[in-house]
């Protein structure tokens, strides 16, 4: 690990306007006159990986789009994803509200890198950053700042509407449901489409300015740079913090002015992620370190579960939410998720009558890997981790006891597709 104490790179601006942006970050270097792969090579050297949840190497994704473009796919489209699909995630909206121009710089740079002729920014309808982004776009167009047009579109805010293939479906006039298609080969209007999270694009805008070596001076060997984490639950100052990848969970919590109550476990990565016991607080926040212990960095969600909450109840609530947000397309998910949610609610009830947790474990394994998207896999991982981390809680439930009913996981009322 290279750096833990890390000064913010993305969240430096206090005011979202153009002048504050230029003061904080300086102008972008001039555009190359002819198509060039210099930017792609710099992104590759920086080791930038996608911050939307998958941590997939950005340069590899760009190459796939360019190859498809070259092989008859035509000019590419770049889509900036600010959908903050995970209910406990605030980072996309927070970043856009603070530094819209950094994200838009990154979007334009990504478009240049893959020789795209169209750029689209997707932000949920209900997002408070929408007017901020709209005025940032007006500022840019009045300055003639960008070599290609940027379109702002506002899809419905649902768990799956930010899923890459679902977002592309929506942009093509369909319902925002995942498909079996490959956006990098045939996405928006059938053209090769690069979909990147807005944080990834903002990081890219900094790599263009400061170079790969600077970027790598924060983060771990495998996951370079800084990253945004949405922290909530039992902390004194919930919100979004920027950390060097590899900063410990305890240090992240300290950045939020510490815990507000004793903590029994943490949810890492969101509802598509996994629970970890509080004893793993020294674990570095990186995709590799978290995965080695069954956790997930995902889209940077960290929720601290206080001692007076019940991990099984919270998991049951999250699985119900996922079941309701499913696309209702694939059988194992359509039937398996509601059944899994029902089992979780059953064992969430403290009952001296005998109950069977094997039903939940069985259903969890039944839905894993069998959908068009990763939603069922995420639910399965969440449940498996809960059965392990909250084993003592389950024993208590069998004795008719429960840790408590304090709810910390958000389950926003979003219209599902059912």
């Amino acid at each position: 690990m290279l750096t833990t104490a890390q000064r913010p790179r993305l969240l430096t601006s206090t005011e979202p306007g153009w002048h504050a942006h230029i003061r904080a970050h300086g102008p972008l270097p001039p555009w190359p006159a002819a198509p060039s792969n210099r930017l792609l090579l710099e992104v590759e050297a920086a080791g930038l990986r996608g911050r939307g949840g998958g941590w997939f190497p950005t340069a590899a994704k760009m190459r796939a789009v360019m190859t498809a473009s070259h092989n008859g796919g035509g000019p590419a489209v770049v889509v900036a994803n600010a959908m903050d699909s995970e209910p406990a995630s605030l980072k996309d909206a927070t970043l856009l509200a603070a530094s819209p121009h950094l994200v838009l710089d990154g979007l334009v740079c990504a478009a240049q890198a893959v020789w795209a002729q169209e750029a689209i920014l997707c932000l949920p309808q209900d997002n408070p950053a929408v007017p901020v982004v709209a005025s940032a776009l007006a500022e840019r167009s009045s300055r003639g700042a960008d070599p290609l047009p940027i379109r702002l579109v506002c899809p419905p805010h649902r768990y799956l509407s930010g899923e890459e293939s679902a977002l592309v479906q929506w942009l093509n006039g369909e319902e925002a449901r995942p498909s079996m298609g490959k956006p990098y080969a045939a996405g928006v209007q059938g053209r090769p489409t690069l979909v990147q999270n807005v944080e990834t694009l903002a990081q890219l805008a900094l790599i263009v300015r400061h170079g790969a070596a600077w970027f790598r001076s924060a983060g771990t060997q495998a996951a370079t740079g800084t990253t945004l984490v949405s922290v909530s639950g039992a902390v004194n100052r919930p919100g979004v913090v920027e950390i060097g990848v590899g900063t410990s969970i305890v240090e992240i919590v300290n950045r939020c002015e510490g815990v507000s109550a004793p903590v029994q476990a943490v949810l890492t990565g969101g509802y598509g992620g996994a629970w970890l016991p509080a004893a793993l607080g020294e674990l570095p926040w990186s995709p590799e370190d978290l995965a080695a212990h069954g956790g997930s960095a995902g889209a940077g969600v960290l929720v601290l579960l206080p001692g007076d909450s019940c991990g099984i109840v919270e998991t049951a609530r999250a699985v119900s939410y996922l079941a309701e947000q499913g696309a209702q397309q694939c059988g194992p998910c359509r039937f398996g998720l509601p059944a899994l949610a029902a089992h979780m609610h059953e064992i969430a009830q403290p009952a001296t009558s005998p109950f069977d947790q094997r039903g939940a474990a069985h259903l969890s394994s039944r839905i894993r890997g069998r959908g068009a998207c990763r939603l069922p896999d995420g639910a399965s991982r969440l449940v498996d981790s809960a059965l392990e981390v909250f084993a003592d809680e389950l024993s208590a439930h069998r004795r008719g006891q429960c840790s408590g009913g304090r709810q910390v996981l958000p389950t926003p009322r979003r219209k599902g597709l059912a």
Partner: protein
Amino acid sequence: MRELRVDPIQCQGRGLCAAAAPALVSLDEWGYPLLADGTREPITSADERAAKRAVRACPRLALALSPR
């Protein structure tokens, strides 16, 4: 080596694949085919004829026998 693949969006759990190739395909509690790796399963040359029967039986064209 080839593999049997199911498109989970196309599949409606009609179950004709399991009827056509019972030794190869079993169904879950809701009637959807269970493949070894979720949506795909390696097929040995001995199983290839059964796999082709399953593919042909699907009224939704949800199954395919593809190179790995």
